[in-house]
Every structure is written in C-alpha cells, then in structure tokens.
C-alpha cells in the first residue's frame, strides 16, 4: 500500500496526464446535475459533490448499448459485432457505495454459463479510482450493507479529500502501477494519513441511517403473500426512477433499431413498468404495482442473497432521494424486519 499526496490545484495536471493513455471518466457538473462523463477537452472534473445524481454504472452498462450491427445486402445478411471496448479506462471519483456496486454487478454479469462480455470487457480494462465520502447525506445507509464512507472494496485507488490537498491511497497492484506513472507525486506524511483517518471516523458516525438487513432475507421467504405489499405500493407511481438511478439495477430490454444498417441494442429497463413482464397473450404475472414493488424488494434482499450471498443494495440512498412520492427503502426494510409473520 502506498500513500501519495497532491495539491488540489495540481489535480487537473494528473487528470490530463491520465488521459494520454486512458479514457478517463469523471464526475462533471451541468445544470446543477453531477454525473459521469468521459473527460474531454473543455470539460472539467467536478469533485466537490456529495454524490452524483446518476450512478457510474453506465460507464460499463450504458443506458443504450449496441450489441451488433446487421446489414442486409446482395450477399445476404452480414453481422458486425459491435466493438466491445478494449481500450484502457480510468473511472475516477466513484464513491465507496458505488464502487461496491461493481463488486455485486461483477458477480452477476460473470455468473452462469453465458458471460456478459459487453460489461465484463469494459470492467476488466478499467482502473477504479474511488473518492472517499467526507460528508455522507442523511439518506445514506452504506454502513448497514457492508460498506463505509471510506471503504475500498471494488477500488484500485482511493482519493481522499483532506481539505487543502488530496491523499491517494493505493489498494491494488493495478492502482500502484498507475501511481508509478506519476513520479512527481509526493509521498504522504504521517500527519496527512492521520488527518484522513480522523475524517474517516467522522464520516462513519455521520451515516446515521441504520437499516437492519440481518434476517430480512429469511423473513422475506415467508412474506410473499403478506398483506404488507398491499399497503406499501399504494403511493408508488411506477415511474421507475428508483431502478434507473440504482447503482445495482441492471435489467435491460433488447430490441432492433433501424438506421445505417440495423442495430441490435440493449437499453435499460425497469421491473417497475407494467410491460416488463407482459406476455404476448396479454397475460401479465405481475399485473399491478404491488407485484412489481415486491419484485424489486425481493430481488434486492432475498433473491440476490440466495444466488450470490449478499444484498443487491449498497445503501447509496438515491432511490430515497429521488422518489417523487418519498417512498423510502429504509422504511420498507424496517417494516419487513419488524413484521410479525407466521
């Protein structure tokens, strides 16, 4: 493990040098919205945020992604595999909760007989440069789900804002190699590391929301037909923002688009939409918001736990912050854990 420091004013230089060999994805701010984008000329990284509005999942799992292009010509049909990005990438400025989401998504996309190369190839070629969270929001609950504001899971490097400068901590060998490319970075002093430790402790206590997920999975096993679902979905509008902004939600639709040669694309989809499970015959196994809300909660706290051993939620709180009717997943898990079931 190596510790380096860099003055904040010099950070754009480091970013500039990074772009020479990598596609660098950073948080940018536009119209008061912070989201991830590929760093390009005239764009500035914006690191003074609480958390980004959109999670960084789209760097590996874009909202619309071409799977292949097909051309129908005189020689018949030709298929051109859409480029699975092979270039080296750096994803910088990812909060620890979001970095953990990739640990979960990696498990999912690499599972089973058929691996999802579109996700995995991009992931494989990316150095994850996290950004510690000094000021968690009131809606954050990462500590309840195995994360922490200074957590390093899923990261190669961790950037820590120690007020006047940034402390860079290497986590993996890949992270160390990246730091070696910048010999001009100064070694951190003991005081810098101490400072970061203090900030980390403060941040940890600042995460006040506690969610009890212990035993929720087992409880949910017996709650499929519980009347609780009839209550909690009532105010849901079915807009799907909770799933679109969720760093772990990754359901998609596959369809063809016409254009210069047709395209097979996949686009984000949501279990909160009625047509998600609507069958050709008109039958829908999840006919109302009740079943769809239940699916979302069950997937995160029961089904994924059974298949992959942990909850499919990292406690980023986006679904809580952005829900237009203030549905709160923390309250739902609380209602489940305190529910009396037969």
């Amino acid at each position, binding site marked *: 493990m190596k510790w380096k420091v860099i003055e904040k004013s010099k950070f754009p230089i480091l970013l500039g040098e990074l772009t020479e060999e990598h596609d660098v994805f950073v948080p940018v701010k536009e119209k008061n919205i912070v989201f991830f984008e590929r760093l390009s000329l005239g764009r500035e990284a914006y690191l003074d945020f609480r958390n980004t509005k959109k999670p960084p999942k789209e760097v590996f799992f874009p909202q619309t992604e071409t*799977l*292949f292009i*097909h051309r*129908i010509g005189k020689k*018949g*049909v030709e*298929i051109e*595999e859409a480029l*699975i990005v092979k270039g080296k990438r750096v994803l910088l400025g990812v909060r620890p909760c979001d970095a953990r989401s990739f640990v979960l998504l990696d498990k*999912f*996309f690499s*599972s*089973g*007989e*058929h*691996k*999802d*190369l*579109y996700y995995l190839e991009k992931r494989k070629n990316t150095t994850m440069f996290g950004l510690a969270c000094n000021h968690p929001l009131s809606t954050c609950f990462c500590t309840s789900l195995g994360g922490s504001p200074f957590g390093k899971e899923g990261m190669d490097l961790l950037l820590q804002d120690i007020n006047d400068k940034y402390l860079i901590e290497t986590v993996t060998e890949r992270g160390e190699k990246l730091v070696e490319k910048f010999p001009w970075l100064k070694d951190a002093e003991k005081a810098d590391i101490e400072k970061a430790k203090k900030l980390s402790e403060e941040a940890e206590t600042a995460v006040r929301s506690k969610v009890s997920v212990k035993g929720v999975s087992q409880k949910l096993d017996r709650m*499929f037909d519980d009347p609780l679902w009839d209550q909690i979905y009532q105010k849901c509008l079915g807009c799907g923002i909770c799933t679109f902004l969720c760093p772990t939600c*990754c*359901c*998609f*639709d*596959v*369809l*063809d688009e*016409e254009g210069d040669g*047709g395209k*097979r694309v*996949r686009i984000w*989809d949501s*279990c909160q939409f009625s047509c*998600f*499970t*609507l*069958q*050709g*015959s008109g*039958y829908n*196994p*999840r006919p109302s918001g009740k*079943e769809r809300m239940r*699916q979302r909660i*069950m*997937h995160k706290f*029961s*089904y*994924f736990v*059974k*298949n992959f051993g942990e909850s499919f939620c990292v406690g980023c709180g986006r679904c809580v912050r952005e829900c237009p009717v203030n549905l709160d997943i923390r309250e739902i898990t609380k209602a489940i854990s305190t529910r009396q079931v037969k």
Partner: protein
Amino acid sequence: MSNPYIPNLAIIRKITTENEVNDIKTFELVFQDPEAMKKFKYRCGQFAEISVFGAGECPLGIASSPMDEGYIQFTIKKVGVVTTALHNCEEGTVIGVRGPYGNGFPLERMEGRNVVIVGGGFAFTTLRSLTKFILHEVNRDRFRDLTVIYGARNPGELAYKYDLEAWGKRDDINLNVTIDRVVPGWTGLVGFVPAVLKETAPSSENAIAIVCGPPIMIKFTMPVLNELGFPPEEVFLSLEMRMKCGIGKCGRCNIGDKFVCKDGPVFAYKELEMMPKEY
C-alpha cells in the same frame, strides 16, 4: 470466450401452415454455416432466440426432434412484432438463431418408464419434439408406454396434422386428440384436456407426466394428475415467461430466485410448489 448475443445466420428452408386461420406456421431452418448447424446440439424442451433483423428477437421452443439432422423447426403463432415479421418472411429469408437455451425435459429420468404427455393449444411444440424423439426407432425401446393427450379449440386449430395422422397408425403410442366443442364432421374426442386425461386415466405406476399448455389448462390438469396418483416430483411443466436475453441477464423471467430461461423452462411440479406463485 464467445459472445452469447451474436446469432447464427439461418435460412428459412420451408414454411408449413399449421392451422386454418393461418396464424400458426412451422418454420424449417438451416444454418448458413454447416459447422454451426452441427454444433447446435439440443435437447427436447429447450428453446432458442430467433431474430428477424430489423424487427428484433424472441424466445421460441424448438419443435423439431434432436434426431432430425441438418435442420431445426419452430412452430410460431403470430402474436407480436417479431412473430408477425416472421410470418411475413418468405422461404429463403435469412434470419438469426442463437441457443439452445434452458434445461429441457428430464429424458434420463423418463427412461425405462411410462410417459404421459399432456398438451393444449400451440404450446404443443416442444411436446411434439419430445413425442417425435421417443417414437424414433433408435429411442422407442428406451421408454415404456407412451400416452399423448393433445387438445385444441377446434379441428382447424390442431397443429402437426401430418404427425398426428402418422402417430395414429402406430400401436406403440396411445394418442388422444381432442377438441373443445362438438364440430360437424369431427369423429374424434370432444372435451377439455383435463377431462380427457381423467377419462383416459393413464396409470401413474412407474410413470412420469410432462405438461405444457395455457395456464387455465394447467390449473385443471394438476388435480387430475394428483387423483391419478402422480406425485409432484413426477410431474414436469414447461413454463412461459416474457424473456429477452435468454441467458439469465436481462432480469425479467424470474420466478423467485429462479430464472425460467436458465433454471427452466422445465420444472418439476414439486419445485414449483416451493416457488412463489408468480407465473
């Protein structure tokens, strides 16, 4: 590692209209690449993703038997965007096929035993694959008595009339074809599948039942099988769910923690009893 989303190119060699109203057709496909055709090894009850370029992709059960070499068949009802586009295709059109996917029917478990196949409507496609497979001269001795119950709304809706005719002439299959209501000129069985099953009353001794059909048929067939003494672990159902990717990634065909595309589509009734009733 190969990319699972890229389909093989296949030519529609033959199109057979299966029903009177002409919305069910059987498409016979041959892969453009003979190597890919050879590599496409499937089991009865598996499905594949069929692409019509420009229209999209949809999952369809394989209707041919694994013993049919050099081609595969799909029997397709015109329902949505892709199946309508397929129905508009002519012989010679190039489409895409990827797969096979899913678990298929439990053939090993069926060996040396009596087999009861119960199907309704155009869900009979993979059951036709299974029936053809069992009746093949290479395989017939591996299974004991074969009872098939197949129902359709009316005679015009019965698919595979050419197969039914040939099977009807054999003495190594107890074939029961039924239609829902009396129709002039129809001399065969009349009645819903569960009622015909009850009447036929195949023995549950050393037997296994394979069921595929619309939800309403399944609902009334299960109690009959139970009455006949079929334990839940000897009844297998092939399920349908809306699917996109076919490989357990797009996230929509789950029933509880199981995905119909990769853990199914065939489940023992005993398994289903443990799963949430959301299908």
